[in-house]
């Protein structure tokens, strides 16, 4: 291969590109050293980026005023999910006006593509995509989020209240 390049001066053609790159790197190094406020990178994890409130991160199951799950186990989210990562087992609720509720609601977060279709399908604002985006964990099983994690993890401080209120709905007669 190499003996095809006979002319030694032609073999140095890449040097100018490398030197150009080194120049840019050093220019940034000097800039960052002397004016830290203009840095484009963060000192993660001490510093963290704040995302837009519309960011689609880890799921949250909302709750009613009394703290019970808002979800009606209609399985529309599971039907809509393109990654097929939501699994729900429904059961009969003691209150006839609630009727149906999930005894199991699991999201396999490693299969989730964060498309937000579940949020969109839900008729009662029971599932939302929250602002959290970190999912690191140790064991495989921890990536399957259950009701306890989705609705009552410590970060949610007792649960996020759904905008759809059962009482109001019943008064309005719908």
């Amino acid at each position, binding site marked *: 291969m190499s003996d095809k390049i006979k002319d030694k001066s032609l073999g140095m053609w890449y040097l100018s590109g490398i030197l150009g790159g080194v120049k840019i790197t050093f220019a940034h190094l000097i800039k960052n050293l002397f004016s830290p406020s203009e840095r484009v990178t963060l000192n993660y994890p001490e510093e963290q980026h704040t995302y837009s409130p519309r960011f689609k991160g880890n799921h949250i199951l909302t709750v009613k005023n009394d703290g019970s799950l808002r979800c009606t186990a*209609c*399985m529309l989210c599971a039907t809509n999910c393109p990654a097929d990562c939501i699994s729900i087992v429904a059961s*009969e609720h003691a209150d*006839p006006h609630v009727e*149906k509720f999930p005894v199991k609601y699991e999201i396999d977060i490693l299969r989730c593509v964060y498309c937000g279709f579940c949020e969109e399908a839900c008729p*009662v604002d029971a599932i939302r995509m929250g602002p959290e985006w970190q999912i690191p964990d140790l064991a495989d099983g921890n990536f399957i989020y259950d009701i306890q994690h989705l609705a009552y993890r410590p970060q949610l401080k007792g649960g996020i209240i759904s905008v759809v209120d059962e009482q109001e709905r019943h008064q309005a*007669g*719908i």
Partner: protein
Amino acid sequence: MVKCTINGQTVEVKEGTTVIEAMHQEGMKIAHYCWHPGLSVAGVCRLCMVEIQGNPRLQVGCNTVVTEGMNINNTSDKVKEAVQWGLDFHLINHPLDCPVCDQAGECGLQDQYMEFGQYDSIMAEPKQKKHKVVDLGPTVVLDSERCILCSRCVRFTTEVSKTNELGIFNRGDHSEVGTHEGTSLDNNYSLNTVDICPVGALTSKDFRFKQRVWYLKEQKTICNGCSTGCNIKVYFNTEGFFRVKPVYNEQVNGYWMCDQGRDIYKFANKQARYQGGKRYNQGQWVTDEAPGHVAMQASKVIAQNKNKTALILTGQYTVEEYEIAIQSFLASVGNSIGIKNIYHWNSHISEINNFDGTLLRGDRNPNTKGLIKVFEKYNIQTQVEDLEKAIEAGQIDTAIVAGPEDLTYYKQSNQKMVSLISALKNIVWLQSTINPELEEKVKSNLFIIPMKSYLEKSGTFINFNGIEQSFRAVTTVMSQALTLGQAIGLMMGDQKAVLPAAETAADHAVKPFVQESRPASQVMAEERKKNEFIYKRGATNER
């Protein structure tokens, strides 16, 4: 015959046909709730409006008999408007809780709204509150708010089950379906009301909340609950079978089936089945073996006891299986001593002619007639009594038993059979469902070979009336399980028995991808169309 014109098309129908029936015969669409081909005409939903030339007012199609030269139309704006307003009235007090309603996906309200409605409601009043989750009986739950008061369920209990448990109480928008004082909806046909309820007002306790209907596939087959052999469809997905519904067959079951037949799917689900072959030898269990392997092991002991091997058959297998099984049995061992050592085991021999007046028969085997027919062909006339005698006389020391699929009705009979044969030297037991009695009692050399349930194989049942009904496999639950023919074949030393039937040149011919060339197990989108409530009824008369 009467000639009339419907939507510009000339139609010829039998005398006395109603407009709605005529339209279904022609496969035309017409909205309706209260009319059901298996019930009397009530004319209460006012949705089947048609315009008849010469008549200034719209008429209900279900209660108008076609007369000569009638010019009928249900596509005019006048009809469309009437149907739309009819629907709006039905929806005034409807809670629209489709997300929690089990009927969603196969609901008459949803379907007809999409087909004929599609408007915004202009009702401003609050909705009428009624009872939710009313326990009507052991099988059915009622949600009064969802009920559209079509009275199908009430007519069913008066006309078909003749038990009269249901009625409509109160007046106007306070009307509610309910059971009469002191009764509950408790008869052997109660679940048919769930099928005919066009909305989600009546739901089955067994199926409630188990699955959304759009996750299920359906496939037609025959019920193996009794010798009536009702035509049914089973609903299933990868998690198993979930429910059973009747399919219309004029000669066998009409539109209905009994509640006992609704349970047949449970015996085919994994939880009830032998997951692998089992052997018991000198006080030790060997479990989780491939069924074929157990059969091969059994074939060794059978080969040593050729003259003393008996084959005991229940009426729960298909005609095709009996043919192969008896043939290979006779060819190899059964005939060697000049006696045909094959016996018919029927649990309900004394009740075989019992009949509940509607569908359910005392003979709980789907294919008793089929077994008898094959027996006749090979000139075998033995019963369990003959087996008892033969065992007493010491003529038998190896028994091959093709056990029943559903043990519910074989409970006592199973105990008797197990104690009868438990003293024998070798027992080969073929069954799909787990048989704890057998495993407990038998202390001799035992082979248990898992069978395919009837939902996993194609074949023919002959019902009490001699009607031959063929069905095809619904799906596979236990891929290793054997059919009766395969198991007996293997035990008789024919190792080719488990291979699929020889392929012909036709199987290899390149076929164009058209509907006819699809594999038998493939369910097409049209077949799953939940809108059959509107589209298909006239053509196939289902539901």
